[in-house]
C-alpha cells in the first residue's frame, strides 16, 4: 500500500524514529493528508512541541483532544476532520485512574501515593505506557477512521511495544503476594516459600531504600492490586491492536548519519519482533538543487561556463572580478548541496537495503523554514505523498 493509499484506507499508523528528525511534524502532515481525503483523523503526539500547536492553528495543545480549524486552509475537506492531542503523562495517568478506580477511596489513595506520582510523572517508560492507554481509548471510543500515533523518540528499544506489559508486570501476582501476603493467606509449602521470599525482599528494600519508600510501595500495591485484572486485560488488548494486520508502522528518519544509525537499530528491533515496517520516511533528507523539480538530487554542471555566462550579462551587468567571484561562490554552493544529496542517498540506500522488498521508501526535502502553519503542513503532506521512491 502506498503512503497515499495508507492515508486513505489505514486505521492506525504508528510513527517511530529517533529524535530530531521531524517525526511529530510528519505525523501531523499525514493526519492532515487523511483529513483532506475526507476522513475523521486523530493525531496523538507525545512530544511537547509548541510549534506543532501553532502549525495546526491551535492556541495550545494539551491532553484534551481538540478539533483543528481546517477551514482556515481554505480547501474543501468534505466530511473529513482533523483532531489532535498532546499526551501529558501525569494528566493522562490521573484521568485513567479517575476512570477505572472502583471507588472514591481507592482513587484518593492512589492519586496521593508517592510511588504512583513518581511512576506516573518521572519514569521514561511511563510516557510510552500512557500513550498506549490513550491510543486504546481513542481507538475503542473515538469513532476515528484513522489514528496517527507519534511515539516518543526511542533508540533500539521500542518502548511502546514493551509498555503495555510493563505496569502489568509491576503488578505481577508474585510481587504483590510478597508485599501484601494477607491478601492471599499462605497455604502449603509453595505459599510459605513465597512468604519467605517476601520477607527477604522487604528486608532488602528497607536496607537499600529506607522504610519510607517501602511503606509507600506497599500502599501502592495494596491499592493498585484491586485494578490488576483490568490493567492486564487492557495491556493485552493494546498489544493486539499494535499487532493487528492493518496497523502500519512507519520508520521516520532524516538522512544524517547519526539518525540513520538510530533508525537502523529501530529497523532491526522491529524486524526481530516480526513487526512489519510499512515504509521508511526520510524527512529533511535532501536539498532541491534544480528549480521546479523538488525531487531532483543530481546536478551536472560545468564550472568553466560560469565565467562565460557572467560575461554574457554585460553590458546590462558589467563584469568585475568581484562579480565573477560571487558567481563562482553561488555555483560552488549549489554543487556542494548536490554532493551532500548524493552522500545522503547512499545513507538512505544502506538503511533500506536490509528491509523486506515490500517496504516503501519516501523522501522529503529539507524545507527552507520550519513548518509554522496549516498551509506549511499541507505543503509537507504533498511532498511526502509525492516523495515515494521505487523500492
Amino acid at each position, binding site marked *: 500500500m502506498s503512503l497515499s493509499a495508507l492515508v486513505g484506507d489505514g486505521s492506525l499508523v504508528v510513527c517511530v524514529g529517533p529524535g530530531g528528525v521531524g517525526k511529530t511534524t510528519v505525523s501531523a502532515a499525514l493526519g492532515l493528508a487523511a483529513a483532506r481525503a475526507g476522513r475523521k483523523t486523530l493525531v496523538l503526539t507525545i512530544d511537547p512541541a509548541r510549534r506543532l500547536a501553532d502549525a495546526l492553528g491551535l492556541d495550545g495543545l494539551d491532553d484534551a483532544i481538540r478539533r483543528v480549524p481546517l477551514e482556515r486552509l481554505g480547501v474543501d475537506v468534505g466530511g473529513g476532520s482533523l483532531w489532535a492531542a498532546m499526551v501529558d503523562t501525569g494528566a493522562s495517568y490521573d484521568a485513567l485512574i479517575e476512570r477505572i478506580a472502583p471507588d472514591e477511596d481507592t482513587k484518593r489513595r492512589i492519586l496521593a501515593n508517592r510511588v504512583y506520582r513518581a511512576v506516573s510523572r518521572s519514569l521514561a517508560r511511563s510516557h510510552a505506557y500512557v500513550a498506549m492507554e490513550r491510543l486504546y481509548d481513542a481507538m475503542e471510543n473515538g469513532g476515528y477512521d484513522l489514528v496517527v500515533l507519534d511515539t516518543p523518540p526511542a533508540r533500539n528499544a521500542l518502548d511502546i511495544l514493551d509498555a503495555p506489559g*510493563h505496569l502489568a508486570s*509491576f503488578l505481577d501476582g508474585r510481587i504483590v503476594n510478597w508485599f501484601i501476603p494477607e491478601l492471599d493467606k499462605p497455604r502449603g509449602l509453595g505459599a510459605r516459600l513465597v512468604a519467605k521470599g517476601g520477607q527477604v525482599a522487604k528486608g532488602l528494600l528497607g536496607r537499600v531504600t529506607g522504610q519510607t519508600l517501602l511503606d509507600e510501595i506497599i500502599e501502592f500495591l495494596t491499592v493498585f492490586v484491586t485494578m490488576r485484572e483490568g490493567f492486564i486485560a487492557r495491556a493485552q488488548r493494546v498489544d493486539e491492536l499494535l499487532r493487528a494486520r492493518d496497523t502500519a508502522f512507519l520508520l521516520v528518519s532524516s538522512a544524517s548519519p547519526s539518525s540513520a544509525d538510530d533508525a537502523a537499530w529501530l529497523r532491526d528491533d522491529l524486524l526481530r519482533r516480526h513487526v512489519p515496517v510499512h515504509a521508511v520516511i526520510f524527512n529533511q533528507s535532501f536539498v532541491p*538543487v534544480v528549480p521546479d523539480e523538488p525531487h531532483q538530487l543530481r546536478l551536472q554542471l560545468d564550472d568553466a561556463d560560469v565565467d562565460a555566462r557572467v560575461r*554574457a550579462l554585460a553590458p546590462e551587468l558589467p563584469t568585475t572580478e*568581484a562579480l565573477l567571484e560571487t558567481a563562482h561562490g553561488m555555483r560552488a*554552493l*549549489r554543487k556542494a548541496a548536490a554532493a551532500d544529496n548524493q552522500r545522503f542517498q547512499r545513507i538512505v540506500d544502506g538503511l533500506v537495503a536490509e528491509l523486506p522488498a515490500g517496504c516503501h521508501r519516501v523522501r522529503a526535502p529539507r524545507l*527552507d523554514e520550519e513548518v509554522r502553519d496549516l498551509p506549511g503542513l499541507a505543503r509537507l503532506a504533498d511532498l511526502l505523498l509525492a516523495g515515494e521512491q521505487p523500492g
Partner: protein
Amino acid sequence: MRVAAANDESSPTAELDLLDHRFLLFTGKGGVGKSTLTAALAIEAAARGLRPLVVELGHRATMRSIFGVEAVGITPRAVGHGVHAMSVEFEQSVVEYMAQHIPSRRTARAIVSNPVLDRLFKAMPAVGEIATINILRHREAERDDRGRPRWAPILVDLDATGHALMFLELREVVRHLMGAGPMRRLVDEVADTFADPRRTRLNLVTLPEELPVSETLELHQRIRAARSVAFGRIFVNRVPTTGLLGAEARVEALHEAARSQGDPELLADAVFARAALDNERRARAQIDRLREHLALPVVELPRLVASRLSGDELRALGRAALAPVRAGEGA
C-alpha cells in the same frame, strides 16, 4: 561540606579550563549532535594528555558507531585516540548496585537472578537513575597507581533533555520518596558533586534554529533556577555558512540580470544562493538570540556531512569546540 553556589558564571572558578572539570555533562534535544561533540571533546582531551572517559546513558549504541568499535559496555574500554568509553543501561546498573549493597555475595547473586525481584527493582521509581549515578560515582573515585584520578574528565552524554533533568533533579525526587538510607546518601553525595562549579559543568548542545534555541533558553532557565549544576558552554552545531555574506548585492544583481537575459542555469544558481543566504541569516539571528539571553560562551560549530567522521576530523571539531569565545551579554 558547603559548596560554592552553582550557576555563578562570573565567579573565578569559571576561569577553569572546561577540560579541568571532573564531570562534563552534555544535553540537548535529540538529533542535535551531542554524542559526536562529546566524542570530539574526549579525543581532544586525550591529545592534551588527559585521561577522558566517555559515558553514554540508556539503550544506545552511538559511541560504538562513532568510534567504530564492536561493542561498548558497562566496563570502560579503549575505543582509540586515547579515549575510553562505556555505556550504562539502567537495568545493568541496578544489578550492579544490588550486588554492591547486599552483604552476602550468595544472597546478592540469588536475588539478582530472581526474575520477580529483578523485575521489581527495575520497575521501581528512581532506582535506575540512582543505580546509574552510583556507577558514575565509582568511576569518579577510581585512582591509578600514582594516586591520580583514573578518569579525568568524565564526559557524560545525557541523551535527551528530559533525561538530563531527571538526573539533575534526582535529589528533589528522592527527597519526597525516600527516608535516610544508602540511596539517599548516594544521591546527596553525587548531587553535591554536580552542584560544585569547580567539579562539574553542564554543556548545552543546540542548533541555530528557532525551536531548538527556545528549548535551550528554557532549559537554561529551569536549571539555573534549580541551581543544581553550573553551566559550561553552549555549543551550536551545524551553523550554515554560504561564504556569500557581504556579497548580497552582487547575488541580487546576478539574479536580476540572469532572469532578464534568460540564463536558466545562472538564475538557478542565484535562486539557490538567495535561499542559502536567507537560511544563513535566520541561523545568525538565532545565534544572536542565544548571546542576547545567556552570559555563557556560545561556540559555533560547522555542519559536517561525512557519513563517518575520522579521528582527525573529530579532533578538529573538539579543538574548535574549545577555542576561546566571548561570552554572551545575557543576564
